[in-house]
């Protein structure tokens, strides 16, 4: 860590006020670009959460903990059996990624469906709210359209070890503020 300190801090001491402001502005630009991309994705896919990390092993061997899923939620596309949907139970925060196994749709377009994880023995009725037997369109956060393995592990690590998350954020912050481009 000794060599590390000297190189960087020399740079900082040489900066004048204007360059310091520039660094902060740079930082702000990066943060707002990231935010714009995220919100843009939300609008483009129609889903409030266009990228989710798989949190449990209930869809193994297709999806393991730490895999990344890309979701869309276009209202015109009807839900059909076999689709992998990400849904939230009313009153609960955690989204669940399971497959639709039963579906009943009325002429009015009103649809009710049942889901089950590939790796689970029973359907999800045990997971739904008490008294709830079916899911509705409004419970769906998105439908899985694309998949990348392993990439979401970083998010899981950051959730399980919050100190790790703060450490990473602090390092990134310092790096951006100090590094001269």
């Amino acid at each position, binding site marked *: 860590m000794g060599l590390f300190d000297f190189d960087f801090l020399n740079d900082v001491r040489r900066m004048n006020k204007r360059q310091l402001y520039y660094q902060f502005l740079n930082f702000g630009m990066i943060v707002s670009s990231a935010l714009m991309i995220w919100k843009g994705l939300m609008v483009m896919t129609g889903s409030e959460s266009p990228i989710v990390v798989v949190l449990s092993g209930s869809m193994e061997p*297709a999806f393991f903990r730490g895999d990344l899923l890309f979701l869309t939620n276009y209202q015109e596309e009807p839900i059909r059996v076999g689709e992998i949907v990400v849904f939230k139970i009313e009153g609960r925060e955690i989204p669940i990624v399971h497959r639709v196994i039963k579906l009943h749709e009325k002429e009015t377009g009103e649809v009710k469906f049942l889901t089950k994880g590939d790796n689970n023995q029973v359907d999800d009725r045990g997971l739904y709210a008490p008294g709830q037997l079916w899911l509705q369109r409004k419970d769906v956060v998105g439908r899985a359209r694309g998949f990348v393995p392993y990439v979401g592990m970083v998010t899981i690590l950051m959730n399980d070890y919050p100190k790790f998350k703060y450490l990473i954020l602090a390092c990134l912050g310092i790096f951006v503020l100090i590094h001269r481009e």
Partner: protein
Amino acid sequence: MNTFLSRVNTIFAFTLSVLAALTFGCFLTTVFNDNIAPVQIGTTKAAVKNVANFAASTREKNDLGQIAFDLHVDLAPLFNWNTKQLFLYMTAEYETANNKLNQVVLWDKIIKRGENSKLDFKSMNTKYYFFDDGNGLRGNKNVTLSLAWNVIPNAGTLPRVKGDGRYILKFPNEYRQ
């Protein structure tokens, strides 16, 4: 490029970029596959009972279909370097007075890459209970049985493909006792 840390930083960034490019390339090479294969389905038993729907935990009596089916399909051409597994599911699709569209998965199977992908089943029992949301199975002469599969890649899109071939099942007009 003369401190240990900046070298590690560069190598790390380069590794990530190469991995990302390779993953994207992997996805591109298989995204236009149509993944269709011919399927033969038949049934050897089709009966209907009217019982309390224990699967939906109600006292209501719903129609319960009892089916044994034959299945013949060869899925070997669908497996390539970007196929992790195929999730097969057999669906019964029909219309009733209660609902315009009903879809019920009766049976499913996971075939991982490397496992036997030529299936030839005779008189298989369904895995899941075939309960209707109401009493629309008795006398229903137009229940379509079809096999579909969800292609799970190593990286890329998750298409659901219907097999080329279906079977129209006709339920009897009387309940079986």
